[in-house]
């Protein structure tokens, strides 16, 4: 019997308190009165006459403008791919930029990239929309008025000259900068001044990790975590699959260690205060408050070092000791003491050099909170004459960030008019990463190139060019990058003697592996592990969400509308509380609550989060940004509309003022907060109950049987049946004649639920590829979100600490598709390749198909969703129809990619190879959980996976024969299997 799964607390209650089953079908109320059949026929007749009239006109004239001189190697209508580097966050994953007719239209992961290995997260996928943002700054701004670059260069040149002569502090405040070129340019720029300093910080700071390594190993480095090498992973509040440092790289490594087919199955323990994406994948999850974390970690350290420990600490230590040198302990806390405990544990287990690399460290977080705090103090004291801010938004992201205004001259390099740009005297906008040359060094010895894929769309100037101009040596970004590579990077490697060959090769691949000269670490110095006392009261934890991160992409509607992978909330941040705590405080889902502490207060809607620690409340960072002002008019304009933005005119509330500096690090926790109900309500736009596959309680048979939607197995059971092969076709009796004859192709997809982390990169990838519109908050509340993939999240087990399953759900391309039989106009029919085709131009919008779909994967265009922004429309994929109002749509298995591959294969005169067609969701998946291929091809990966003993089909009992298979989750112990659960 399958687990009892629930998607929300309401559903769980309904399951527990079964209402008496009514004998009759519930009445739907009176049939609405209105125009009857005759009226309809009259109207139809009139419409026909109008169409007749319209038919007399010709289609509008269209122009075609060919090149005057066509560039060699570029053919209109063909897509070209360029290797580049993602600039959406400092993780700097490898990119392939798809350009079509001179404009980039899609970002995909670079499969050859040593870190990201072909995946790309939701934020990276969505960052292409920033290129076509019509509200980007198009040129420099001086004192609030637009200016020219000459004017700004002249004025600032004068001011900098004065500082050069008289002295005075010049400070450059940036996010993490690991680009060799940027670092070289910054060095040259600051060398002009007697008191010039570069301060780096990260809004999602990891400063404590670097500080702890400085204390224990003598070098201030961030280790490169090798999740692929670990057999036991223990995470202490580190959301490494969702937001922490380099999620794509970590997800790839983590899932490569959890492939049941290869008999490698890493054990993952996660101790955390809130339910993070990483916690949902853990084999053992321990809800601990941030205060309790210190004592838990100290106990683990003591036990690992030879002491004894009981309870949870003993359990963790036991697992770790079984995997010495093959385990990995990561800690997301900003408390240096805790990070030193983590170092001690890793050192005692011999993990350094195995699963943690400090010889070739990561450079994805270089921020130093101590220096940042010092700079803020200098600013407060008015000691800074010139402050330059690049790649950061301190006014929004930092507590006391307004201090930047105290500098004599403030220059911002923001792309958009954000908080810091508004507080600056000069804004010198940098272009989008796809418009300019650059480079990055995300890990020591791995240097990547960022190449432009389009001419700049505005008058922005790259940061390095601006700084070079102010250094008195104006140079183009391309020349600057080439110079750095010639002088710094090329001598570091030994493979290529000739620079041009080396450069060409790196440009083609997107990266180059070179040696690095990191300072040598000294021997481990064991720190004094003091045990900090825990605070007993309610603690506030601030956290980034996988979509919004630190808020730098708050302009991006795709990311706002992406349901949070755990809570499934869109378009808002909220206070999440444990259901137990909420019950004590009398708070229900959607109640506005007031969070107060030490004179600060914020009001946010509440959300009850199963699995959260009872003494913790959590609020997401990155919301309430000025960049979200633009969403005031988002969504269809009709009589019953409600705005997407809140009362403040922004999306969500900025929680960054609640960050605090303690002992030289920026902390995410604040103790001693109080939560009170305000009496107001703001129901959240939460998609978790939309498009549900479960039977509504009042229609369910009694006794209630859970539907086997998500299926799980255990390691023990899996080992027994691993070698068993499943037949491809179910052997259920059929009422339908076998009238589908398939040719050489029969497309199918397999989703490995064990690998899927729920990160939702696929959702945005699909949105970009298939021109899926954004509908706005109000429409999401009305269950009208348009995503073709949704990632269903199911809980099972106790509310205090449930197990979680993620299930990507999209059109299952059924062989006996229920949608096909009910369409009155044959707008959805079966293809000879197993696809369930949706023909937009034939659809009349009866929505019968959506009603009859057992998987609820069809989406209806209730409106012609705004496409007024001509610039934003350039991101549309020209290979996919933009659907109009009144049309049904759904996943097509990226049929445009199938067609392209088939036609190209035919042109070459050979069959389509396995792996040649990658659907958008499959390509972006960092965990490689999606397989797509031809069932009729021997040896195709998808066909192999279809025969795995883990494979099942969702709702197999209704015998619609979907072309999508799911691979069962493999758990170390099962929640329902009667085995001991959770200690």
């Amino acid at each position, binding site marked *: 019997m399958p687990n009892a799964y629930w998607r929300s607390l309401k559903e769980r209650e309904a399951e527990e308190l079964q209402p008496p089953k009514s004998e009759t079908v519930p009445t739907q109320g009176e049939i609405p009165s209105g125009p009857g059949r005759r009226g309809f026929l009259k109207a139809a007749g009139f419409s026909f006459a109008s169409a007749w009239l319209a038919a007399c006109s010709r289609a509008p004239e269209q*122009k075609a*403008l060919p090149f005057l001189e066509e560039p060699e190697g570029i053919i209109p209508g063909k897509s070209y791919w360029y290797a580049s580097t993602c600039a959406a966050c400092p993780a700097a994953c490898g990119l392939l930029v798809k350009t079509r007719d001179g404009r980039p239209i899609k970002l995909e992961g670079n499969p050859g990239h040593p870190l990201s290995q072909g995946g790309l997260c939701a934020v990276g996928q969505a960052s292409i929309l920033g290129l076509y943002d019509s509200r980007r700054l198009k040129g420099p701004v001086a004192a609030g008025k637009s200016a020219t670059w000459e004017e700004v260069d002249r004025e600032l040149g004068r001011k900098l000259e004065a500082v050069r002569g008289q002295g005075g502090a010049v400070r450059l405040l940036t996010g993490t900068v690991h680009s060799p070129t940027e670092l070289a340019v910054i060095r040259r720029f600051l060398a002009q001044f007697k008191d010039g300093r570069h301060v780096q910080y990260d809004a999602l700071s990891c400063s404590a990790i670097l500080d702890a390594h400085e204390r224990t190993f003598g070098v201030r480095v961030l280790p490169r975590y090798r999740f692929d090498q670990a057999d036991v992973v223990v995470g202490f509040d580190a959301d490494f699959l969702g937001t922490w440092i380099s999620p794509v790289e970590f997800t790839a490594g983590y899932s490569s260690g959890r492939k049941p087919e290869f008999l490698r199955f890493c054990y993952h323990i996660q101790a955390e205060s809130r339910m993070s994406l990483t916690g949902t994948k853990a084999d053992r999850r321990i809800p601990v408050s941030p205060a309790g974390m210190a004592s838990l970690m100290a106990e683990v350290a003591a036990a690992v070092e030879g002491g004894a420990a009981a309870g949870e600490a003993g359990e963790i230590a036991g697992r770790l000791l079984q995997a010495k040198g093959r385990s990995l302990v990561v800690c997301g806390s900003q408390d240096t003491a805790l990070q030193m405990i983590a170092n001690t544990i890793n050192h005692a287990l011999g993990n350094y050099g195995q699963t943690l690399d400090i010889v070739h460290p990561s450079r994805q977080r270089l921020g130093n909170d101590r220096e940042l705090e010092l700079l803020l103090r200098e600013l407060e004291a008015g000691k800074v004459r010139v402050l330059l801010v690049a790649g950061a938004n301190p006014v929004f992201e930092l507590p006391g960030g307004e201090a930047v205004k105290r500098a004599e001259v403030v220059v911002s390099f923001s792309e958009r008019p954000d908080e810091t740009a508004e507080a600056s005297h000069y804004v010198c906008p940098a272009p989008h990463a796809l418009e300019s040359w650059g480079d990055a060094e995300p890990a020591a010895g791995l240097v990547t190139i960022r190449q432009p894929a389009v001419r700049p769309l505005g008058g922005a100037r790259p940061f390095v060019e601006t700084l070079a101009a102010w250094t008195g040596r104006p140079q183009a970004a391309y020349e600057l990058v080439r110079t750095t590579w010639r002088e710094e990077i090329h001598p570091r490697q030994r493979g290529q003697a000739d620079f041009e060959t080396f450069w060409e090769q790196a440009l083609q691949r997107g990266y180059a592996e070179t040696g690095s000269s990191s300072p040598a670490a000294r021997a481990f110095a064991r720190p004094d592990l003091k045990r900090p006392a825990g605070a007993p009261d309610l603690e506030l934890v601030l956290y980034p969400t996988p979509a919004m991160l630190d808020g730098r992409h708050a302009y991006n509607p795709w990311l706002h509308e992406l349901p949070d992978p755990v809570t499934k909330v869109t378009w808002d941040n909220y206070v999440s509380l444990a259901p137990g705590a909420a019950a004590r405080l009398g708070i229900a889902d959607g109640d506005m609550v007031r969070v107060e502490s030490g004179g600060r207060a914020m009001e946010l809607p509440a959300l009850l989060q199963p699995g959260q620690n009872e003494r913790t409340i959590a609020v997401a960072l990155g919301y309430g940004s000025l960049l979200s002002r633009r969403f005031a008019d988002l969504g269809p304009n009709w009589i019953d509309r409600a705005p997407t933005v809140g009362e403040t005119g922004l999306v969500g509330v900025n929680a960054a003022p609640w960050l605090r500096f303690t002992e030289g690090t920026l902390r995410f926790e604040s103790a001693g907060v109080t939560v009170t109900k305000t009496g107001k309500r703001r129901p959240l736009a939460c998609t978790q109950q939309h498009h549900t596959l479960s039977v509504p309680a009042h229609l369910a048979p009694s006794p209630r049987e859970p539907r086997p939607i998500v299926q799980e197995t255990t390691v023990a059971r899996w080992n027994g049946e691993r070698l068993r092969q499943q037949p491809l076709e179910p052997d259920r009796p059929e009422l339908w004649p076998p009238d589908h004859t398939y040719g050489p192709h029969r497309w199918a997809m397999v989703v490995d639920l064990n690998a899927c982390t729920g990160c939702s990169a696929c959702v945005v990838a699909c949105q970009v590829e298939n021109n899926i519109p954004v509908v706005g908050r109000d429409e999401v509340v009305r269950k009208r979100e348009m995503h073709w993939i949704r990632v269903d999240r199911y809980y099972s087990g106790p509310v205090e600490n449930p197990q979680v399953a993620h299930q990507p759900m999209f059109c299952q391309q059924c062989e006996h598709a229920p949608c096909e039989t009910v369409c009155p106009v044959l707008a959805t029919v079966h293809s000879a390749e197993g696809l369930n085709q949706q023909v937009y131009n034939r659809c009349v919008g009866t929505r019968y198909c959506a009603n009859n779909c057992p998987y609820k994967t069809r989406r209806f265009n209730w409106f012609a969703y705004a496409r007024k922004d001509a610039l934003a429309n350039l991101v549309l994929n020209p290979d996919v129809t933009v659907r109009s109002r009144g049309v049904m749509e759904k996943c097509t298995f990226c049929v445009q990619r199938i*067609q392209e591959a088939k036609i190209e294969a035919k042109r070459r005169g050979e069959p389509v190879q396995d792996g040649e067609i990658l659907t958008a969701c499959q390509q972006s998946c960092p965990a490689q959980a999606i397989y797509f291929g031809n069932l009729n091809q021997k040896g195709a990966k998808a066909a192999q996976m279809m025969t795995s003993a883990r494979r099942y089909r969702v709702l197999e009992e209704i015998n619609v024969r979907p072309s999508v298979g799911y691979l069962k989750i493999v758990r170390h112990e099962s929640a329902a299997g009667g085995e001991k659960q959770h200690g």
Partner: protein
Amino acid sequence: MKSGIVTITLAVGLACSLWLLFVRAGTFHLPSNQQGYEPAQPIAYSHRLHAGELQIACQYCHFAAETSRHAGIPPANVCMNCHRLVTSTLGALRAEDEAATRENRKARQVISTELRKLYDALALDAKMQRDPQREPRPIAWTKIHNLPDFVYFDHRAHVNAGVICQTCHGPVETMQRVQQVPDLSMGWCVNCHRDATRTGIGGKPVQASTDCSTCHY
């Protein structure tokens, strides 16, 4: 009362329809049927001369037809392969030559009015060099064979399967001004696909799919 208005509206609609049917029966088209469309082009380029008399292969100019979904309108630099030297009709050149011999002078450069437009678009001066004073301007041709936005026709698939250009574009080599010959309706496409699957193309068996998603996605 209300139904009276509806009846009158319907009657007027019907009368209009009948009148239109009567008047325009001969030229009636379904919406977006552009059969017979023959717009004037910015340059009066003659396919009859180039493809017919001079027998230049279609794909010399429309070279992308084999590799891309669009056959493409040739960029002006393809025209210039010949028209750097050929600046007018043979007749006009000969006449100028003869006149020059007769008048005992050097032959002047003769540029036809249509080719003048090409050189203007490229901003070329009398010596066929780029004139830095002028901006080149792309030539805005009027599209004739226009499929709706929800149809994805791919030239590659057809050209590589051996479908000759005239199947869809008509006898272009005989046209002074290009006209749309078939109606390019879906029924017309599907019939051809069925026939091709049945009879093959040029003796070669082919599978011309009639799945919706062959063209609509």
